[in-house]
């Protein structure tokens, strides 16, 4: 399968990428690792006329201890996240979730920023970042702005990023090496989750769901039940409350709701150990 033709421009810096995006508007797409975009281009579901390769903007690949939080460059690869010592100590959940993205080959290329900007509700990292209450930093011609994870994912493959903005950094709180769980349910090892549930305990417990709607979702009813003193088994009964999961060849909506409840219970139990 061969993508539709396009012009290829390699950006040497974030600002250069933004300038090229501004020039071409919606006709241009950013290319980071390409693990989400290239498959869509090969199916010709995405046909940008200009591809702006930011894969070599090396100064956007880092995991830094920034005092009370961690700062992660948008072009940090999954491989570098799953092996990060800083994350092992201060945000074990992100390391563990990154290790479950795709397979080794995909993790050698794919980036956390690419996964976030793609906005696929079936992706692993967006749900983890939602559970972490992450902050996303977007840079455009007018400068930088911060976007809360809760406001970022707006629809299927739809995010708060403007066409001429580049996601540059992801900021997450320090939640420690333990106190989390990611339960990913799929048919084959490298598949997307049919449903996933991530729980992070850092004082309060937060729960987010993969593939239970058009965006990654916080399981707010579960969190409220836990805050009111409910046991994990009882709180997890609310995991599918208010969700409208899709039907596809892997699962009916009813099955997805069942999975959300079971996986949430397992996640809560494991996060508590």
């Amino acid at each position, binding site marked *: 399968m061969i993508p539709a033709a396009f012009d290829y421009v390699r950006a040497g810096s974030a600002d250069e990428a933004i300038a090229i995006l501004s020039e071409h508007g919606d006709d241009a797409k950013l*290319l980071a690792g390409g693990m989400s975009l290239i498959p869509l281009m090969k199916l010709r579901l995405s046909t940008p*006329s200009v591809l702006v390769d930011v894969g070599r903007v090396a100064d956007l690949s880092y995991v830094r201890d920034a005092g009370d939080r961690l700062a992660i460059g948008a072009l940090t690869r999954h491989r570098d996240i799953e092996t990060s010592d800083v994350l092992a100590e201060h945000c074990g959940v992100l390391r563990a979730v990154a290790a479950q993205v795709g397979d*080794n080959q995909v993790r050698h290329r794919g980036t956390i920023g690419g996964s976030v900007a793609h906005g696929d509700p079936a992706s692993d990292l967006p749900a983890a970042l939602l559970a972490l209450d992450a902050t996303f930093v977007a840079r455009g011609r007018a400068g930088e702005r911060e976007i809360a994870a809760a406001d970022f994912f707006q629809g299927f493959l739809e995010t708060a990023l*403007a066409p001429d903005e580049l996601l540059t950094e992801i900021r997450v709180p320090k939640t420690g090496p333990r106190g989390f769980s990611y339960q990913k349910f799929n048919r084959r090892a490298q598949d997307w989750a049919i449903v996933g549930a991530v729980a992070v305990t850092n004082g309060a417990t937060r729960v987010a769901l993969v593939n239970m709607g058009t965006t990654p979702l916080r399981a707010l009813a579960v969190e409220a039940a836990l805050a009111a003193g409910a046991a994990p088994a009882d709180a997890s009964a609310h995991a599918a409350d208010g969700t409208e999961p899709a039907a596809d060849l892997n699962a009916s909506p009813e099955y997805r709701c069942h999975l959300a409840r079971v996986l949430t219970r397992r996640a809560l139990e494991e996060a508590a150990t």
Partner: protein
Amino acid sequence: MARRGPGALFNVPASTNPGVSVRISMTVNGAVQDHDVEPRTLLVQYLREACALTGTKIGCDTSSCGACTVLVDDESVKSCTMFAAQADGRSVTTIEGLAPEGALHPVQQAFQDNHGLQCGFCTAGMVMAAVSLLDEIPNPTEREVREGLEGNLCRCTGYHNIVKAVLAAAGSAR
């Protein structure tokens, strides 16, 4: 505010511009390769068609099966899901470059010794994925081998002998 949504993703008309060719240069199996390519040229096409290295296979063409696995700067990647232009200036290793002509790399030898292949279609990708895995985890457990090869599908040998081969190769390298 304009949003980057499905409209932007799906409704852009296909370009009629064939895409300005780009000159790319990379080291493939130790030798420099220079070619003009269309930007949409995939790395696997580049290796097979421009470099005439057909050991790397196109299987599923959707980054699921791993038959197209090669090393870019010593790390396994699926060459069906990377543009050749992204490998510009990098060092690429294919199955042909693992060992000198006539010799076998320890992982190749282990596949032969342990009946790690039958039809052979997945083998180049399996071997390249295994080489990258052993580079990252020199002494893997059986579980680490199985998880490390999750991006590679075999449809005839089955996985047991492949796992045995990779464990044997790890042992021989010790």
